[in-house]
């Protein structure tokens, strides 16, 4: 009749099992990255980080209007990929425009994993389609703020996860009246991760693009650049790092160009060009600047 | 000839092998009995003789391993066999969160008694067992004796023709016992049949028409109380002790 302690313990055990089930997708992603880390260690040691990852994923699920592969779909696709694309390498990473935002990078990355809905194999699956989301859509413009609560919680859970801040600020900045909040959130992130070049870049770009505050933008962006160079050398070589360097350089170049410091601007464009997958575009901008400098000089001389 | 109300033919009940023993427990071993309409029948035997088991078979709680059990000529496997009986278990507990009145109403519904009629009966039974002052309180506030009285009232809700009572007076105070005896007497006067087990041989002697004495699942003696007393020329208690082979031991 009455709940005995034993019984409550059993119930709690069940709840934790179910939580584990809920968190399994995230755990899987993590252990893929970390490779050798045991599940138990993750559960005990970085439980908070696991939760943070989970909530971050939650925001991503909202972005896709609930259309999201389960761990089983992911596993299946991984299998198929392994079979059919064994020879293909991950070359596509460098293709993005340097201005493309981080969140979109990440999206483009798994966007191709989003056609997980296959022909149903049996009547259960076919009938089940009535009760699942089978259409790949994204949150409508203006609705994107629905993702924010999860990002907020993710930041609470793991203040060291930089992507949370950059992603949230990206969506906040989309609405003009919320730039202030985006800035606040980025500053909070920087308080927790003072050396993060990604956060500095994001903040600089906010000052430059949304607040037209060139001076502050320049300061922050320069800090981003030095933070990038202060990275340990092994984390400078991956695609993501190189792409970030390119974006910092190009943004700095634009800031300087807008302030009329063409020489500085050209210097930064040159830096950007060395790491860009599309150096021709940057070269064009450099040429343009050179011309401006030249005509400026001519004007100066005439005076 | 009078209608046979309880009929046992060669009844056998084996309990499956319990832990700590290697053979199934034979609780009732070839028991045959016949209780006729209007009788008050005493079912006697020492502890563990198989009385409760026999009653459990009659009520369908336990399945007979062999033989036959009938109530009003209907096999006890048919639930309808229990339409005309009232039952008071040895140890009774009822839904603690219900009041006496709600419990009686619930059982009345189960019997399919109409609402008006049920109201009338509930009223009468609550008066009979003297629970008027507590009839609307939940049972968890009742004393053991009060719960026992609820048990008696529920056994009578369908105005049964046969009452099966397993040690109805155990746990009751002298007034309660008196009350139960009065009720049995009254039912007998109304022509009802009562089948009950008891260890109170004095009580049995005063209210029963016939008795059966069982031991180790087997019938040892059966007959009218008066006949038995005449046959053995001694009290019922001595007859009982002799039949189960009890020898007084010297206490050293």
């Amino acid at each position: 009749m009455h709940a005995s302690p034993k019984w409550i313990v059993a119930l709690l055990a069940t709840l934790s099992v179910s939580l584990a089930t809920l968190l399994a997708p995230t755990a899987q992603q993590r252990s893929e990255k970390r490779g050798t880390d045991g599940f138990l260690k993750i559960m005990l040691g970085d439980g908070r980080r696991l939760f943070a990852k989970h909530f971050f994923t939650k925001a991503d699920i909202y972005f896709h209007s609930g259309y999201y592969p389960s761990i089983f779909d992911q596993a299946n696709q991984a299998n198929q990929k392994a079979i059919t694309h064994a020879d293909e390498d991950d070359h596509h990473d460098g293709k993005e425009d340097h201005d493309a935002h981080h969140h979109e990078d990440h999206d483009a990355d798994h966007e191709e994993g989003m056609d997980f809905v296959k022909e149903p194999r049996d009547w259960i699956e076919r009938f089940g389609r009535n009760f699942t989301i089978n259409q790949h859509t994204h949150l409508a413009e203006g609705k994107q703020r629905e993702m924010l609560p999860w990002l907020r919680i993710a930041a609470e859970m793991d203040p060291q996860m930089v992507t949370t801040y950059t992603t949230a600020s990206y969506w906040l900045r989309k609405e003009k009246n919320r730039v202030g909040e985006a800035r606040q959130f980025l500053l909070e992130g920087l308080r927790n991760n003072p050396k993060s070049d990604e956060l500095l870049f994001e903040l600089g770009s906010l000052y430059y693009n949304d607040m037209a505050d060139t001076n502050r933008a320049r300061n922050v962006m320069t800090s981003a650049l030095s933070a990038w160079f202060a990275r340990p050398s092994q984390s400078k070589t991956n695609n993501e790092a190189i792409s970030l360097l390119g974006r910092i350089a190009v943004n700095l170049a634009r800031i300087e160009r807008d302030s009329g410091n063409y020489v500085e601007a050209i210097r930064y464009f040159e830096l950007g060009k060395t790491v860009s997958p599309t150096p021709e575009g940057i070269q064009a901008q450099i040429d343009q600047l050179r011309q401006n400098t030249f005509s400026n000089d001519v004007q100066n001389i005439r005076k | 000839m009078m209608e046979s109300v309880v009929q046992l033919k060669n009844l056998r009940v084996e309990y499956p092998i319990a832990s700590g023993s290697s053979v199934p427990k034979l609780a009732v071993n070839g028991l045959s009995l016949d209780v006729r309409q209007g009788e008050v029948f005493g079912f006697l035997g020492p502890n563990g003789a198989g009385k409760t088991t026999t009653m459990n078979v009659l009520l369908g709680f336990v399945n007979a391993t062999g033989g036959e059990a009938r109530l009003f000529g209907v096999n006890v496997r048919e639930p309808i066999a229990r339409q005309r009986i009232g039952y008071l278990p040895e140890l009774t507990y009822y839904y603690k969160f219900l009041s006496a009145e709600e419990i009686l109403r619930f059982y009345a519904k189960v019997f399919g008694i109409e609402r008006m009629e049920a109201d009338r009966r509930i009223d009468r039974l609550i008066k009979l067992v003297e629970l008027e002052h507590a009839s609307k309180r939940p049972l968890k506030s009742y004393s053991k004796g009060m719960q026992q009285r609820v048990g008696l009232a529920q056994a009578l809700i369908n105005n049964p023709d046969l009452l099966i009572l397993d040690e109805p007076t155990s746990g009751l105070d002298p007034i309660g016992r008196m009350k139960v005896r009065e009720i049995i007497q009254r039912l007998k006067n109304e022509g009802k049949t009562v089948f009950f087990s008891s260890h109170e041989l004095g009580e049995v002697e005063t209210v029963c028409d016939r008795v059966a004495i069982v031991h180790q699942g087997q019938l040892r003696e059966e007959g009218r109380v008066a006949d038995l007393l005449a046959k053995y020329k001694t009290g019922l208690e001595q007859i009982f002790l002799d039949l189960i082979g009890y020898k007084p031991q010297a206490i050293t």
Partner: protein
Amino acid sequence: MNTVWAISTVVIKELYRRKDFYVLLVLTTLLTLAAGSMSFFNENTIVRALKEICLLLIWISSLIIGITTAARQIPSEKENRTIFPLLAKPVTRWQVVLGKFLGCWLACGITLIVFYVFFGILVGAREHTLPVAAFAKLMWMQWVALGVVVALALLGSVVLSAPGPNATLCFIVVLGVTFVGPHLGKVSVGLTEPAGTLLYSIYFLIPHLEWYDLRDIFINDQILPGNAACFMATFYAAAYATLLLVLTWARFRRQNLNT
């Protein structure tokens, strides 16, 4: 039918006279309201996360209420010996099983209505609209699934008479069936032979409770399944619950009960 109904009302009466039931009800309601008053980024037009949290709470609470109530019924009747006066009446054990099922299922329905009313107030206050039809569909499907869950817990309670382990096992089964069950078909394809067929058969045999969980569709403002699909799903659940109840009865029917 009278008897079944009478037995089920006793179940409901017991539930609403128990304190722990109120604790869960009040707790869920409070948590729902607390979640409702949360605001992120000074924003009170955000509804999806709120809906999600509330629906998760409702989902867990109703599962707890359904399973614990159903798992307790028959064992507590035996333990408290209330089954004896009941079965001494002209009551079949099938009626007992059915009455218990009906009582637990109706109790689930009542709690769902309470929960959804609070949920509706909350969502209505934020969105200034109340999609009553969608709410009704969501609730109906959840209630239908709870029918299967209750029947499962009843079956468990006549096999494992201790309510604790039975409830725990039911939880694990229900969660497993909801989260892993739908994917067993896919997983079985990649397996080697006896295991693959075995898994695929399990996939066909388990109840597909994931169909009745429309939370994601609702939260993400996608289109809820049509009435025909819901009707079919209801039919499937009814058939499944009936099967479980028949199994319960088959097991309970010949059980010896010792006073």
